[in-house]
């Protein structure tokens, strides 16, 4: 089943899709696949698997730190693809790879798209490849992976339409000005802009990410989208994870987030 179909099926049950971002190999390399599967089993509909990078420009301190730990754990694209196959062998839920352009460029783009598709990845999100660089960067993808492009509530109508046209799977709407990380609430102005954005996205589902950290923030934003993405808030809890202990607490947290997705 493809990515947009999967989100659509979730939406048909009157639920918003919950996507959870985890930095691959964080905090522990050996139990990471189980950590990710437990998050999916607890109610996450999609997994965004972060490829660590030394200089993550769009990320706040929490994801920066997780990326650093993953690099110290010697996680590279090869290990991310191994996690992907392992996870996909045990779940039918979509796995989307998310990372910065340089490790992908360095791995070889054609090889990356093809190896990732072989490993079972469903899509790819590269936040520092904007729509202007799409044709050149994704030339060798040839439909192997769904490509998710990003918009902000303050993108021009022209760019929002272009992102919709180029995306497959869903459009990723960044909720705020800023890097990833927790915010307490969304302004009225932001919510209005998000509502406008959604009207312009015709071809794809729209997921909202950045700054969504709690069931409350999901409830406030759920009416304006098809799904939400939670990253830093869960990574922060993973910091406290000590070899298997604490996994149940994270599972409970994911359950709470998913419940909030079912109330709209």
């Amino acid at each position, binding site marked *: 089943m493809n990515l947009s179909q999967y989100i659509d099926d979730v939406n048909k049950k009157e639920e918003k899709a919950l996507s959870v971002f985890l930095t691959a190999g964080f905090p522990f390399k050996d139990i990471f696949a189980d950590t990710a599967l437990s998050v999916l089993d607890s109610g996450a509909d999609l997994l965004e698997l972060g490829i660590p990078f030394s*200089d993550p*420009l*769009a990320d706040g301190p929490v994801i920066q730190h997780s990326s650093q730990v993953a690099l110290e754990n010697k996680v590279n694209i090869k290990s991310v693809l191994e996690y992907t196959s392992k996870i996909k062998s045990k779940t039918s839920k979509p796995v989307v790879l998310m990372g910065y*352009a340089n490790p992908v460029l*360095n791995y070889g783009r054609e090889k990356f798209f093809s190896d990732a598709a072989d490993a079972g990845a469903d899509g790819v999100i590269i936040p*520092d490849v904007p729509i202007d660089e799409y044709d050149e960067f994704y030339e060798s993808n040839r439909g192997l992976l769904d490509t998710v492009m990003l918009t902000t509530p303050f993108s021009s109508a022209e760019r929002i339409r272009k992102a919709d046209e180029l995306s497959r799977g869903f459009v990723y709407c960044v909720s705020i000005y800023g890097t990833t990380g927790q915010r307490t609430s969304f302004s009225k102005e932001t919510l209005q802009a998000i509502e406008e954005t959604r009207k312009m996205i015709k071809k794809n589902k729209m997921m909202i990410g950045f700054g969504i950290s709690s069931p409350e923030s999901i409830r406030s934003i759920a009416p304006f989208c098809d799904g939400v993405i939670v990253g830093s808030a869960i990574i922060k809890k993973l910091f406290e994870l000590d070899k298997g202990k604490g996994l149940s607490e994270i599972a409970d947290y994911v359950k709470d987030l998913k419940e909030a997705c079912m109330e709209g």
Partner: protein
Amino acid sequence: MESIAKCALPDTKGKYGKYGGRYVPETLINALEELEALYNKVKTDGKFIAELNDLQKNYNGRETPLTFAERLTKRYGKAKIYLKREDLCHTGAHKLNNTLGQILLAKRLGKKRIIAETGAGQHGVATATVCAKFGLKCEIFMGETDIERQEMNVYRMKMLGAKVWPVSSGSRTLKDATNEAIRDWVANVKDTFYIIGSVVGPHPYPQIVRDFQSVIGNETYSQIFRAEGRLPTYVLACVGGGSNAMGMFHRFINEDVKLIGVEAAGLGIESGKHCASLTLGKEAIFQGMRTYVLQDEDGQINEVYSVSAGLDYPGVGPEHSFLKDTQRVEYVSVTDDEALKAAIDLSRYEGILPALESAHAVAYLEHLMPETREDEIVIVNVSGRGDKDLNTIIMFMEDKLK
């Protein structure tokens, strides 16, 4: 900015061949488009150019001299050596050429808050200076390692009213300060203008900084004709991010002049502790641009090293990458020791104490001069003065030159 870029590059997508471009999160696109549109308008606007030229003359102290280095020339007994004296700019380096231009852009965009990254502190000082002059709020990001080795410039920035944010991530140098400045800009893009200090980052920054710095080469061109009635044979400049070199080279790109960019080989190219991005780097996408970068086998950016904080950067401006591939510019490197020795030599032969960055260009004379002839001319860009590096130089002298 007497005349703006005759060169056709970058293209409309901000590319120099395959290099450059705009690899940034979507949040920054609006601001970059706005900046590009404004810049395309003002670069031919007589009022803007007149305002900038007035500041360059009456505030920055331009034009800077082109000094004949008589004793240094005699020492080698080969080509005539001239020095372009960017060390005599206000604040002590070429950096103000660019910040004066960018602050005028910020003013026209109505931005109230200015941010910048700095390595050696020269760009931080130059930014704090123009913010003081124009009454704008200034915040500077600087790596903790650089704060330690460039203490005097930190005090200067504070004296000028700027807030200095220490950056503790990564190698705690220029690369990390730049990441932090970009993150701040992503969060505050509505009211904040980011003054980038070199010919790096997403389009249109490499072009804007090059054009504002091209005053160096434009003056040099006229000056060498006044002094010698002809073009130089060689032009040398140091390359970290590469702004003084681009500013110097730009006027000479289409002339029959050999251009040499000198990178920092740190403890030696073989040691792995250097920052010679063009000599040993690979193509990468880094800090908004496609360019040569020092990286590991997984595409993670390396922590690099140079005694000179201003060159201590794993990337380089995208136009330099293009000029390397097209072989229009030759890129070479010299070590810490060679640069430190050159700083002492230039002080003792010419009474000019260069910044350690600029000393890299001076140091390459040792390699170049034996190959030159007496009827040739060599111009070295002395991009800044060395007062800020006295501690480092004194430690080196006590260690090696007792």
